[in-house]
């Protein structure tokens, strides 16, 4: 292995003038990049900036059209990821590639050349324990993967790469699925690893604070080119965002004052079960008025999904009542709720919010096919639908070749704009926005938040579900932290203190007692 003999500060991996073209685009345009042992060098860029392509080239999934990769001072050519792994480059994917039914150990040694045909689990366990002790990972090696949290799965992926002898670790969106606490743990682990002379390359689209906290250097990509390389200590969140997006970005959406109107959604004593048959929503009660954003703050898995599904008519309630504009809709079907003015932006854009094989026109139809205007006498008015699609593409600045493009070919941010446009163009009375900016880059996040704020100004009620405290606190008129299906309190948005909301989200009672 070329990287066995390296010392702290040596350049371990270098890319010179990497260019990669795809039909119609230059995904990477003469990109230079280098990383030293013991360094964290983040690569930052919006969706479509060429991060994924560069990452795949560094890991041997793509071969560059031009340019060279240099590992430990020697020019190399990767035919496949196997070559990269053999030279000491490890990759931790954003979407975990683990076998849920197997134990942590079994997953780590899966595919390891030394695992051979007969498993020597005992020796492997000793080695892996030593490895995780060295980097301070706390993880139960004998637990099954389905039992452990997302944060722990991430550590398993890292351990797996390290056990294969990785000296350079590529992390794809390392914190995107993690809770705040897990993020802290991961950041700690990254520090330890870089202190132990590993080279770490996190690829990040959003979450600029993390870049600032963990990296030594940052390379910013925009439209396939390196726009800046800078020591992190000299960068600020604002300067990085400007370079990524190419213009000034406003981080906080201005909270617009809107006169509180009639109650739109009333939830009374609502309970519901999760898919596993456990109480997920536990006697929730709250009311959303016209011109109000009601923010539910909490870590995913505390009943938010079930609550949203009950309101949208996709899950049976156990008890309680849902009232929309004074009408009891507890027993209404989801179609009737769409027609009554509920607009639901689901958290899962790909599996719930869109149909990948369908064109954008047909995706927009998902929320319009039942309208008289678009389906007279049972035939669909494609011409009208195409016009609407073009309008939405325009108004929501969706980057796409046209309305006939399939949804699956859009990036996450653009797909979210399509869904947002589809739902908001119906002018719903109640907007349910479940994790609306999750996984989006800085520009798209800003866009989504502004659109929700506009809906509020147009007198809609907005139910905002988010894990991101900044989002909740800057947007909501009311903040309701949830913990294990219980609303822990309803705080006025402007006065709510970050620490209080954080404590309530973690299930702690406030001193004075929550209202």
């Amino acid at each position: 292995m070329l990287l066995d003999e390296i010392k702290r500060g040596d350049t371990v991996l270098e890319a010179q003038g990497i260019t990669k073209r795809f039909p119609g685009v230059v995904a990477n345009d003469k990109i230079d990049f280098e990383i030293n042992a013991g360094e964290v060098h983040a690569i930052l860029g919006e969706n479509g900036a060429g991060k994924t392509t560069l990452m795949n080239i560094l890991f041997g999934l793509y071969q560059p059209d031009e340019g060279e990769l240099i590992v430990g001072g020697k020019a190399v050519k990767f035919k496949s990821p196997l070559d990269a792994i053999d030279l000491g480059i490890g990759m931790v994917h954003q979407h975990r590639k683990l076998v849920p039914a197997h134990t942590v150990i079994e997953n780590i040694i899966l595919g390891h050349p030394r695992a051979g045909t007969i498993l020597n689990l005992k020796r492997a366990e000793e080695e892996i324990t030593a490895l995780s002790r060295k980097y301070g990972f706390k993880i139960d090696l004998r637990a099954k993967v389905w039992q452990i949290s997302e944060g722990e799965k991430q550590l398993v992926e890292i351990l797996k790469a390290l056990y294969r002898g990785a000296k350079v670790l590529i992390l794809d969106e390392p914190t995107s699925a993690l809770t705040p606490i897990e993020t802290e743990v991961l950041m700690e682990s990254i520090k330890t690893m870089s202190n132990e002379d590993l080279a770490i390359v996190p690829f990040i689209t959003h979450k600029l604070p993390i870049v600032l906290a963990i990296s030594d250097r940052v390379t910013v990509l925009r439209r396939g080119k390196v726009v800046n390389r800078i020591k992190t200590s000299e960068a600020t969140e604002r300067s990085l965002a400007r370079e990524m997006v190419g213009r000034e970005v406003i981080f906080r959406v201005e909270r617009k004052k809107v006169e509180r109107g009639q109650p739109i959604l009333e939830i009374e004593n609502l309970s519901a079960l999760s898919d596993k048959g456990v109480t997920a929503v536990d006697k929730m009660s709250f009311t959303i008025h016209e011109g109000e954003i009601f923010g539910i703050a909490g870590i995913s898995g505390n009943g938010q999904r079930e609550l949203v599904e009950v309101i949208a008519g996709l899950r049976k309630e156990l008890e309680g009542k849902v009232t929309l504009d004074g009408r009891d809709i507890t027993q209404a079907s989801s179609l009737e709720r769409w027609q009554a003015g509920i607009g639901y932006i689901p958290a899962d854009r790909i599996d719930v919010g869109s149909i990948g094989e369908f064109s954008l026109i047909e995706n927009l139809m998902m929320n319009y096919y039942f309208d008289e205007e678009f389906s007279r006498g049972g035939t669909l008015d494609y011409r009208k639908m195409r016009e609407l699609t073009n309008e939405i593409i325009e108004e929501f600045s969706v980057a796409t070749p046209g309305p006939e493009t399939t949804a699956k070919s859009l990036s996450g941010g653009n797909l979210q704009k399509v869904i947002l446009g589809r739902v908001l163009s119906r002018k719903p009375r109640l907007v349910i926005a479940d994790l609306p900016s999750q996984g989006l880059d800085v520009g798209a996040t800003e866009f989504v938040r502004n659109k929700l704020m506009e809906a509020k100004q147009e007198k809609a009620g907005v139910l905002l579900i988010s894990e991101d405290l900044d989002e909740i606190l800057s947007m909501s008129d009311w903040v309701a932290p949830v913990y294990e299906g219980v609303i822990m309190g309803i705080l006025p948005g402007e006065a709510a203190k970050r620490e209080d909301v954080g404590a309530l989200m973690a299930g702690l009672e406030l001193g004075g007692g929550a209202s």
Partner: protein
Amino acid sequence: MRIGSYELTLKKRETLAGWQAAVISTLAVVFALLLFSLVFVQAEANPLEAYKEIFDYAFFNPFGLPLTINRFIFLLLCACAFIIPIRAGLWNIGMTGQLYAGALSAFAVLFAFGVKGAKSAEYPGELIIPLMVVASMLGAVVVGTIAGYLKGKYNVNEIVVTMMLNFIMFWLVSFMIKDGGPFMNPGGRGESFELAKSLYAPLYKDVPFTVVLALGFALLLYWVFAKTKLGYQIRAYGQNPTAAEYAGISGVKISVLVFVLGAALAGLAGYHYFAAVPGVYKIARSYNFQGDLAFYGIICGLISQGNPIAAIPVALLFGGLTNGGRFVQGKLKLGFGIDYALLGVLMITLVAFQFFYRYQVVLVNTRKETPDE
């Protein structure tokens, strides 16, 4: 693969136009016929002569052509019966049972009107024939709905249910037509009573009117999928059931609906074969032949990738080859099963060629990558 400075590589297709699919399928048929020539050669027959006999008999012979067309009608209806549920992501393997139910229902109408085998008796055909058609569709719907409802409401696997219903219906037909059964032929023989001549389906040049229904339904279906709200809902559910439910489309309704519609066409296929094809006009002892033939409808539906218009030429080809293949086997005194072997090779080739729906072969000049300038 390299040829000089050129390299053959596979490229993923972004889109596939209808005509490209047609060209690929035609090439597949040609390739299959070339491949199968080897079998003819091995059987000491001249492949050219064999194919000439097959196609002559299937498509140009005054005896063969009506047979081909009758099979074609049957296969097209069965293919459509498969296509409707498959567009919703559900597998109808129960055309066999559904068409048996259709045939029994059509004969039940005859039974109700007292038709019991007197061939020359006069009956009001203009009343009874439409009733038989409607009854055949309704009877099949009853059987089909079971699978659709169980799937939609309780998520019971529709493949298993339709498959099991095939067996149940098979034996029900047996019970009805064999000795002692209500539809028994007065002469016994383990078959049903025959239609009276006045109840034979109207023919135009030896082709029953069901050809209009089959072609009409295929075109109608194409339009339904392309243009209507109903078609949209079915396709949305087929592509992504979760997203469809999110959009307010009820999975239970769609499941029941596609099986109702699909079974109705299968029932019509049952009417066609047992009460409209000249020379049959009864549920014969070997009624399992028609039941088994329905499975070719699945193949036709799969090869045409759920497109009812594409199913028309495919069903015609399979109708012709089942017919011509059997003929050439007798005429050239080839071994038993050569007709089935031909169909098998054809199916595998057609399915294998669908690889080219997703990939295209391109010739790249590798010299171009290092330009001289």
